[in-house]
């Protein structure tokens, strides 16, 4: 008895050989519990071992398997074949990033921006262990918890047209992470993160399209983080105009 199949139209690109990416069609078994990642693994295991893509945890927590599925940025481990039946399913590398090979994109730009926003707790003076732990009320935790859920999957960058048009833009995830640390009551690094956020390619490039928050698989809502950072930045600017000698936060 022949099993039902579904077609995947997968982008192929070989650096040094191909001038441009091209599409290759593969027929894979249609299984109700399969995700697109399962289909890709099937292709690599049984059909074409040269297919190249990233994946790791296969359960939506590592952020490695982000790709465009029918034009929408998705984690392929969370994109069920049954939601795309009868297909065909278009699988392309994550948008707005340079393609290294097949479905693998270069993450260098994001990594550099991530480093620049200093996504770690910054203290002027570290509290010694003998003084005990840092304590936070539920309300203080609530201030930043949502934004700490980011898994750096970069679906938001693929969904952001501003990043696509102007790659110098710092971008949703980086700003959301900067906001996460700025809002953490243990953090004292607001001033150190200010330069990257307050550049014209920082928060001000964002036009609140909002697609970043729509595609985020962890509910981070980077759009909200960016707009709130704009409000904070506008207040800072006004204070620096009115009180150039002080007005420190």
């Amino acid at each position: 008895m022949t099993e039902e199949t579904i077609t995947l139209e997968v982008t192929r690109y070989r650096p040094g050989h191909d001038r441009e990416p091209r599409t290759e069609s593969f027929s894979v078994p249609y299984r109700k519990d399969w995700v697109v990642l399962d289909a890709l693994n099937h292709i690599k295991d049984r059909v074409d071992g040269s297919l190249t893509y990233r994946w790791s945890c296969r359960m939506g927590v590592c952020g490695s398997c982000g790709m465009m599925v029918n034009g929408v940025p998705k984690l392929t481990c969370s994109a069920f074949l049954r939601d795309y039946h009868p297909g065909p399913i278009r699988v392309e590398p994550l948008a707005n990033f340079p393609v290294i090979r097949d479905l693998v994109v270069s993450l260098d730009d994001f990594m550099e921006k991530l480093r620049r926003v200093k996504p770690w707790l910054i203290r002027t003076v570290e509290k010694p262990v003998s003084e005990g732990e840092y304590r936070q009320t539920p309300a203080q935790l609530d201030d930043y918890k949502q934004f700490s859920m980011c898994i750096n999957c970069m679906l938001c960058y693929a969904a952001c047209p501003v990043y696509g048009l102007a790659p110098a833009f710092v971008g949703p995830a980086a700003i959301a992470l900067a906001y996460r640390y700025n809002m953490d009551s243990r953090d004292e690094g607001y001033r150190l993160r200010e330069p990257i956020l307050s550049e014209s390619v920082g928060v001000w490039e964002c036009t609140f399209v909002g697609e970043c928050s729509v595609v985020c698989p962890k509910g981070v809502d980077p759009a909200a983080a960016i707009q709130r950072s704009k409000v904070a930045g506008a207040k800072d600017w006004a204070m620096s105009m009115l009180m150039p000698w002080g007005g420190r936060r």
Partner: protein
Amino acid sequence: MSEARPQRPGLYYPKMPLTWWLARPGYVRFMIRELTSVFIAIFLVELLVLVHKVGQGPQAYADTAARLQSPGWMVFHVVALAFALYHTITWFKLTGVVQVVRLGDHKVPPALVVAGTFVAWGVVSLFILYWLLVRS
């Protein structure tokens, strides 16, 4: 700006087409939302002209008002009102996302903030109607 980034050999750099905003419904809604500002601006210029003509005397005002009653202008008014309402609705909904309202230790749910803003808008609009039409 977007062209400034150095490109490494071998990598394929995708280009964004000028029709990028047609690719997803979310992008189309975004463009429409941004275009509301154009219709609002045109109407405000029209309003400024009207105010100016008020000062020029009853005949000048009546002439201008008559011209703004033409079918072309009335179509513009209907379309502009639709766009203006779309701006109001999207703006208030986004305000709920941006503005965190706290009452003591609890965050007011964004939906409630948005609803409150719409109520305020209704009150303001009714007040303006009252001021212009009822008060003498």
